[in-house]
């Protein structure tokens, strides 16, 4: 596919984000675009979206891509509106939008996409080659419109893309917000009609909607699932979400810090929609988001009366249009969430709400689709919503149900969020780079690994104290191997027995359903129960026995016929503990064995702990002045020593850092009077970035040689020597102008420095 990424050529038509800033969805974009290929003709793609994962921009970007590519693929994007009234009005809007976008494409005039044009205007704009069929389309529409047959009209409008003559191209229909189509079921079941029309059409299409709704809708429409592909759209991962925050903050001119950005990512769970709304709010209020306090103050504001409040209000109003029902729901949901009631009888809620059964079912269905609750028959779980949703519930409960003073609710919302923020980040940092049991078990797929990796006692005898190189060499000569089973499902022990919450963290215990040799029958089915025991020393026998009993008891309670207990501890187990486990045919591993196991089984790089000597980064912020550049110089000296730079090179690096800091202090007029230093260690180089907020120094790019002619000229030139020194002392120097200031990036290569 010819993708146009040059900003010079790429026209932004429906998309709201510049292409180069559209992060985290490259694979999904490619997959959606692939649906337009000839071989996919007639196949639909169901885009199953997690709530607030943000699918609209993905489809708009796809539209722009095809519009710019100018191939036989004619893109069409239509979003169902939350504010639509009837299926008929939505269908008419669909027809109008289709013709507009079609003509925009045919005429290569993107402005038509956003113009307010009537059907007659569109007919007048039709190129000669399209005039006949468009004129006929409009005539038929006019006849059907006034025929009082709403269903026929809806089907006719939805079928418009199929009328495009083949020689003019292949329409690629992208429909956004299928769950909203269901709200238009007034006489005509719009959602069902959409799926029926496109499911039977000879067109490639994409239907995007909430994951819990769209599959059900496809079933109700009796779609042929063999002709439907699926793509799941989750929230962004941490790296992409961080990039999103950076990009949006820059576009919205909201000052942020890396700490605040990371907090936003974690607090909003990587949701593009919530992150973007939050930064939009910061922009509107001209607020900086540099500290946790800044973020939580704005967060409280938003929950009580801003974008976040409006977002959840709208969803809740869609689910429960009546105000008193909504308030009662807020009370029920908050009380269940606050009490961590994972299983609430549905009947109890219905009685509390005093609603007819059909209305109550619709409400439950709505709450379930938006993933505010998990509803499974007679019970529901209201503890599963996001933290933002729970905070929204709490403030509304306190205001609308308990009638507490607003000032108190605001103050405590800020305080609660502030108190929680460090824990939120601590949890994230602990999980960073960590290999979890779930991930490891999930990777079991009949690999052969040295048996000693599951036997701490033998491992300790043979390999304890050996270097990594010796260990790897030793394992290569192992003769006894163990074939791992194939895992089909893994979950935390918490999911099987909530009592485990009392004794360990969620990611420290796992239950993996698997089959030996990949053979799916009763004889080969085996369930692994694994737990990591927190201990700084070898685990003693009594603790080992306790943990074994916990897992063994879980297995027996759940009726597992064949199971394998596996205990892991940082430093392994005492000999008595190991003997006990051996007597029970349980496996035992230390952290080191685990790491080797990960290495042996993992193609998946996410399993591998990042080596400590690669890609390490050190960050430092110092106030300008007071010879604080010496702090930076001392720090970089320590960093450079780790890379074994020779003393001369270290001195050069130190001098360059000092000059860079002085340069920033003297010339940047920094508003915060701070210098931001980043030292990045890579295997063959040290990358140092010195940044400050403020103006671009005048002497940037000055390559003038500091030759001394006479004293007066010298005095003028002397002050510009800093950059000259930096360029001479370091191997690569790059000066970047960023929105808020300047950044000087310097690299010293190890190979240039040694010998």
């Amino acid at each position, binding site marked *: 596919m010819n993708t146009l990424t040059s900003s010079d050529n790429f026209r932004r038509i429906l998309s709201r984000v510049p292409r180069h800033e559209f992060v985290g969805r490259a694979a999904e974009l490619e997959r959606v675009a692939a649906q337009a290929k000839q071989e996919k003709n007639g196949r639909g793609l169901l885009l199953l979206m997690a709530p607030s994962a943000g699918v609209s921009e993905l489809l708009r970007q796809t539209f722009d891509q095809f519009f710019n590519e100018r191939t036989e693929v004619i893109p069409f994007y239509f979003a169902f509106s939350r504010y639509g009234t009837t299926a008929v009005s939505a269908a008419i809007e669909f027809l109008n939008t289709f013709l507009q976008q079609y003509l925009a494409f045919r005429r290569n005039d993107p402005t038509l996409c956003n113009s307010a044009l009537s059907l007659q205007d569109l007919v007048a704009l039709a190129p000669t080659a399209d005039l006949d069929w468009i004129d006929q389309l409009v005539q038929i529409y006019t006849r059907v419109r006034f025929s009082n047959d709403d269903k026929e009209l809806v089907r006719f409008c939805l079928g418009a893309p199929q009328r495009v003559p083949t020689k003019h191209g292949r329409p690629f229909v992208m429909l956004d917000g299928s769950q909203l189509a269901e709200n238009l079921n007034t006489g005509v079941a719009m959602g069902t009609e959409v799926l029926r029309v496109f499911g039977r059409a000879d067109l490639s299409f994409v239907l995007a909607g909430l994951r819990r709704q769209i599959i059900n809708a496809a079933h109700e429409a009796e779609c042929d699932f063999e002709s439907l592909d699926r793509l799941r759209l989750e929230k962004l991962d941490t790296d992409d979400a961080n990039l999103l925050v950076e990009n949006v903050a820059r576009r919205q001119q909201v000052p942020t810090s890396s700490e605040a950005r990371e907090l936003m990512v974690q607090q909003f769970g990587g949701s593009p929609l919530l992150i973007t709304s939050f930064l939009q709010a910061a922009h509107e209020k001209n607020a900086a988001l540099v500290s946790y306090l800044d973020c939580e103050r704005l967060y409280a504001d938003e929950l009580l009366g801003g974008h976040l409040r409006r977002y959840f209000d709208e969803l809740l109003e869609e689910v429960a249009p009546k105000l008193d029902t909504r308030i009662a729901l807020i009370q029920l949901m908050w009380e269940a969430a606050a009490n961590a009631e994972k299983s609430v009888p549905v009947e109890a809620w219905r009685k509390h709400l005093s609603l007819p059964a059909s209305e109550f079912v619709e409400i439950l269905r709505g709450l379930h689709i938006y993933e505010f609750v998990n509803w499974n028959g007679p019970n529901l779980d209201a503890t599963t919503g996001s933290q933002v949703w729970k905070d929204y519930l709490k403030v509304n409960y306190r205001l609308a149900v308990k009638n507490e003073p607003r000032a108190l609710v605001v103050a405590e919302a800020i305080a609660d969020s502030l108190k929680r923020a460090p824990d939120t980040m601590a949890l994230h940092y602990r999980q960073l780079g960590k290999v979890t049991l779930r991930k490891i078990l999930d990777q079991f797929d009949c690999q052969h690994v040295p048996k000693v990796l599951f036997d701490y006692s033998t491992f300790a005898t043979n390999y304890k104290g050996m270097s990594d190189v010796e260990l790897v060499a030793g394992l290569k000569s192992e003769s006894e191997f163990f074939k791992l089973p194939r895992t089909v499902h893994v979950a935390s022990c918490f999911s099987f027995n909530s009592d485990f919450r009392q004794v360990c963290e969620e990611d420290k215990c796992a239950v993996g359903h698997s089959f030996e040799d990949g053979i799916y029958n009763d004889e080969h089915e085996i369930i692994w129960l694994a737990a990591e025991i927190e201990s700084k020393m070898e685990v003693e026998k009594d603790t080992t026995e306790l943990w074994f009993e916990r897992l063994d008891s879980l297995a027996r309670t759940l009726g597992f016929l064949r199971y394998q207990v596996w205990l892991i501890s940082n430093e392994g187990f005492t000999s008595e503990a190991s003997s006990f486990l051996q007597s029970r045919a349980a496996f035992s591993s230390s952290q080191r064995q685990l790491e080797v196991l990960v290495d042996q089984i993992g193609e998946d790089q996410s399993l591998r702990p990042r080596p400590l000597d690669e890609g390490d980064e050190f960050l430092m912020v110092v106030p300008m002045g007071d010879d604080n550049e010496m702090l930076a110089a001392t720090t970089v000296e320590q960093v450079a020593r780790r890379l074994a730079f020779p003393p*001369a090179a270290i001195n050069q690096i130190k*001098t360059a850092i000092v000059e860079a800091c002085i340069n920033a202090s003297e010339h940047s007029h920094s508003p915060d009077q701070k210098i931001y230093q980043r030292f990045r260690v890579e295997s063959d180089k040290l990358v140092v970035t010195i940044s400050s907020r403020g103006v671009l120094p005048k002497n940037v790019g000055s390559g003038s040689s*500091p030759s001394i002619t006479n004293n007066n000229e010298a*005095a003028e030139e002397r*002050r510009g*020597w800093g950059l000259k020194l930096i360029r001479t002392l370091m191997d690569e120097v790059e000066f970047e102008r960023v929105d808020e200031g300047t950044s000087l990036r310097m690299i010293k290569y190890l190979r240039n420095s040694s010998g």
Partner: protein
Amino acid sequence: MDSLSGATVRSHCVGTTAVVYASDYLNKLTGEKIERECRRQLDSGCRALVIDFGDTHLVNSIGISILLGIIDVAEKSGAQIVFSDVNNQTVELFDMLGLTRHVALAKDEQEALSNISQLDPTPTLH
């Protein structure tokens, strides 16, 4: 004669030569202190200056520009000036910025004093 002035720069005199000791980090502040002390010594009648860099591990460009100023002052006074005990990295910096064209370098304080006693009072310009 050792310096007992308010300046914190260490210095002493050997005959008509003042020996001034630079600190471990030669920056604007310490550079200006050295400059002040050098001027004071010249005003007191010294006819040669030795600036010893034995303790100096790091020099920044501002410090170097101040040293150039001291060289200027010394030249105008007709005084000789020698830098002693400069480590290799600092010599490299001095070379980069052209300092070594205007001042002699000596291995240590003794050699500097010896060189001065043998040299013509008028500095040789390269």
